[in-house]
């Protein structure tokens, strides 16, 4: 393996860098080192190499949003009162003066109107929560589509999935804290969900709410969960996630100089620290701008929660939209056996379905490695097209998610598109099953088509856009061979299912195992990269063609040969020529 080690970061060597004259910083560092022995860790990690690509920063959106949440959250806790004790509002917002409300709601009004910067921090906190979860989702999609969830990173995927689930719950408990009409309606729905659980439903419900709904305990309890329990778990999981990332080193795209056995990029200090710090300030800044310019969750317009009031367009925040949609689409199935009620219409879409889907997402790397039999370590990413079935599966899951999401906003779709809400629901009931299948099929064929295109480019070169007309009158587009770097990058992929992992032995009786059959379907129709023979044959053919067209070479043919824009043909760089 001829890795050019002349450019390896020299500070990864074995001799310690010697500190020369004792500067102030040097003295401080020495003091710390004498107590903490940090140099050993520092030696390895200060100049650790990270590869560079914009898609590697999506997880950072989530990470920095979390930091913004912590900062803005602490601010809010200084004024928020998590109590359902009743009071009569006499604060600075006139339309609610004289109205009974909980202390929690009154403190939310106080923060919004009487604490300078309070409304800003509330909105920053809420926008950051939305960006946190959205960031985790785009990061999840990037990781999955590029195959970064394969060994050795399966555990990191599991940690990440748990972060997503916990983040969603954290968001739900968070926006329910102000005890306003909209989020209170959400809590009422949660009460209905819990009540519907067979056998233990009423017990769990009464334990959760401290008695009947609404009671006076739910807000303080959600506060504890939101401010203490879940953030603690999130912090621990994020730390583990980062630790594994540093230990495994980040994956990288294939390319010139890049191998499974190395990582090419820039060192942590100063490049990545600066970029990460800069991105943190960017995320915080964008969130602050959104908090200043875009109003969200205007709790004063909703009024305090009252179990007899409701608003049209009652939806949870976007990340809970899909279980809400599933709930809306579900037909009203209830079974009654021997004096008991089984509420399938609630239990299935809200408890069972999300549980099943989350479990599937959690297990995706393990399912994939079971099907493919791939036991190797992977540090080079794959283009989505090179794993058609995997890409299509995730697109199908995204489509399923999207169908539920749309169902969650069906009343708004109805008024914006002047459609019948009943028809929308009926249509979505069917689409939920049909659309993912269609999406799967289309995506898979699309990926395979792109693979074929890659092979064509590899064999026959890229289209230059220059049309040549031969003296005989025929037209041909000039193809040029890909530059060495691009051609190499295209060939860095597995050839065939067997190279990835072994197939099962057939069962006694000759039948294939289940895994074997799934595996065959998984790899079906993949357009494999050309063999060495095909490639060499194609190169010879290309040389022949180049000879044939040699007479036409060097002559500019874009029409400018007759005017004063003429220039030597060789100087003009061709499209994509570097």
């Amino acid at each position, binding site marked *: 393996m001829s890795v050019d080690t002349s450019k390896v970061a020299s500070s990864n060597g074995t001799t310690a860098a010697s500190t020369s004259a004792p500067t102030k910083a040097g003295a401080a560092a020495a003091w710390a080192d004498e107590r903490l022995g940090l140099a050993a860790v520092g030696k390895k990690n200060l100049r650790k190499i990270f590869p560079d690509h914009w898609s590697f920063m999506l997880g950072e959106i989530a990470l920095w949003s979390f930091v913004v949440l912590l900062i803005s959250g602490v601010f809010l806790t200084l004024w928020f009162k998590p109590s359902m004790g009743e009071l009569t509002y006499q604060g600075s917002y006139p339309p609610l*003066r004289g109205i009974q409300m909980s202390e929690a709601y009154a403190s939310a009004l106080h923060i919004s109107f009487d604490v300078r910067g309070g409304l800003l921090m509330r909105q920053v906190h809420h926008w950051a929560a939305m960006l946190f979860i959205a960031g985790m989702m785009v990061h999840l999609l990037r990781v999955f589509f590029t195959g970064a969830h394969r060994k050795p990173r399966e555990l990191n995927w599991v940690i990440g999935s748990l972060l997503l689930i916990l983040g969603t719950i954290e968001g739900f408990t968070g926006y329910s804290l102000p005890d306003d009409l909209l989020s209170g309606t959400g809590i009422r729905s949660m009460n209905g969900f819990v009540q519907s659980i067979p056998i233990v439903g009423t017990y769990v419900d009464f334990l959760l709410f401290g008695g009947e709904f609404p009671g006076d305990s739910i807000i303080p309890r959600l506060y504890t969960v939101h401010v203490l329990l879940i953030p603690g778990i999130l912090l621990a999981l994020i730390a583990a996630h980062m630790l594994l990332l540093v230990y495994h080193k980040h994956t990288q795209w294939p390319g010139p100089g890049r191998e499974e056995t190395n990582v090419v990029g820039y060192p942590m200090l100063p490049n990545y620290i600066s970029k990460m710090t800069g991105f943190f300030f960017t995320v915080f800044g964008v969130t602050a701008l959104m908090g200043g310019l875009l109003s969200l969750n205007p709790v004063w*317009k909703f009024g305090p929660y009252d179990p007899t009031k409701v608003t049209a367009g009652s939806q949870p925040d976007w990340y809970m939209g899909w279980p809400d949609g599933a709930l809306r689409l579900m037909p009203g199935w209830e079974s009654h056996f021997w004096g008991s009620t089984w509420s399938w219409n609630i239990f299935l879409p809200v408890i069972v379905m999300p549980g099943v889907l989350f479990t599937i997402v959690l297990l995706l790397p393990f399912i994939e490695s079971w099907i493919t039999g791939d036991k190797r370590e992977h540090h080079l990413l794959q283009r989505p097209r090179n794993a058609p079935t995997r890409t299509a599966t995730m697109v199908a899951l995204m489509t399923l998610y999207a169908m539920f999401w749309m169902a969650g906003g069906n009343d708004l779709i109805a008024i914006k598109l002047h459609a019948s809400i009943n028809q929308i629901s009926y249509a979505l009931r069917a689409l939920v099953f049909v659309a993912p299948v269609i999406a799967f099929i289309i995506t898979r064929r699309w990926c395979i088509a792109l693979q074929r295109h890659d092979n064509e480019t590899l064999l026959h070169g890229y289209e230059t856009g220059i049309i040549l007309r031969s003296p005989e009158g025929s037209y041909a587009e000039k193809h040029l061979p890909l530059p060495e770097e691009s051609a190499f990058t295209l060939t860095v992929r597995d050839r065939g299912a067997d190279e990835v992992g072994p197939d099962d032995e057939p069962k006694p009786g000759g039948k294939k195992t289940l895994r074997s059959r799934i595996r065959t379907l998984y790899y079906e129709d993949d357009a494999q990269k050309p063999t060495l023979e095909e490639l060499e044959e194609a190169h010879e053919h290309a040389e022949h063609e180049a000879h044939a067209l040699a007479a036409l070479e060097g002559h500019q043919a874009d029409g400018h040969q007759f005017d004063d824009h003429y220039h030597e043909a060789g100087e003009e760089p061709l499209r994509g020529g570097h």
Partner: protein
Amino acid sequence: MRFLNRSVGRLSRHRRRPLAGAVVLLLALLVTGGLYAVLSPASSAEDKADQADQVAKGRELFLVSCSTCHGQNGEGLVTQKGKLLGPSLVGVGAAAVDFQVGTGRMPMAQPGAQVETKRPTFDQDDINALAAYVGSLAPGPAIPDKNQYDPSTYSSDKEKEQAVTLGGQIFLTNCTACHNFTGAGGAMPRGGHAPRLLDTDPKYIYEAMLTGPQSMDNFSDGNISPEEKKAVIAYIENMREQPGYGGFSLGGLGPVSEGLFAWVAGIGVLIGFAVWIAAHTTRTNKKKGTAQ
């Protein structure tokens, strides 16, 4: 300047300053407009015509524009197959007519699940005549008086403030389930919708509550009293005039539009930054003097 020169230039030719012509033109327009506004007959003044004349006029208009669906005497029209073409107007009252025709809903442009507002076909005189005619068919709700629906007629700011508070509670109990917490509108079954209230004239809000147009419920004076109706209107007006304390309101539609903005504006902008951060900067073919 060239345009000004042509018209204004001529006026300015004999005057000391070149822009004087522009000032003369402006003054002439203002004077003409002002004279017209003062001297022209008020088009929406209450018609002092005889009540019977008004009813007769209304009947004429009714026969031309409304009777094809509502019947020659407003009794309603049902097809042989039992389909309702137009409901009976006997007893709906002048208020219903003022609402339906004043907001342009009637005459209905095309059949459908929901009657939409559009530019009114009739001016206020004709509407009053139609209302008088329909009101004469049988006793029904009358067109409200300004004191009943206009929040500016409260005697003091304090009274108005209290009305806004009461109106808010009534609004949240009775109205938001269909019309949404800011009055931005909401969905009804089978393609109907409860419309947006924030741009609606207070008189029409009052009349809608009173007469229950299309699939809206009645909120007769025995259900929500006239004072309470006025309080609701005061609250809606307060909603309309309230500044966006937190910024742009995203349509007042709640979490769905918020989520859309989070994805499009938030994630879109941040991914844009990510692409910028990781992008290669400008390159040059020049070489560095000394090795790195």
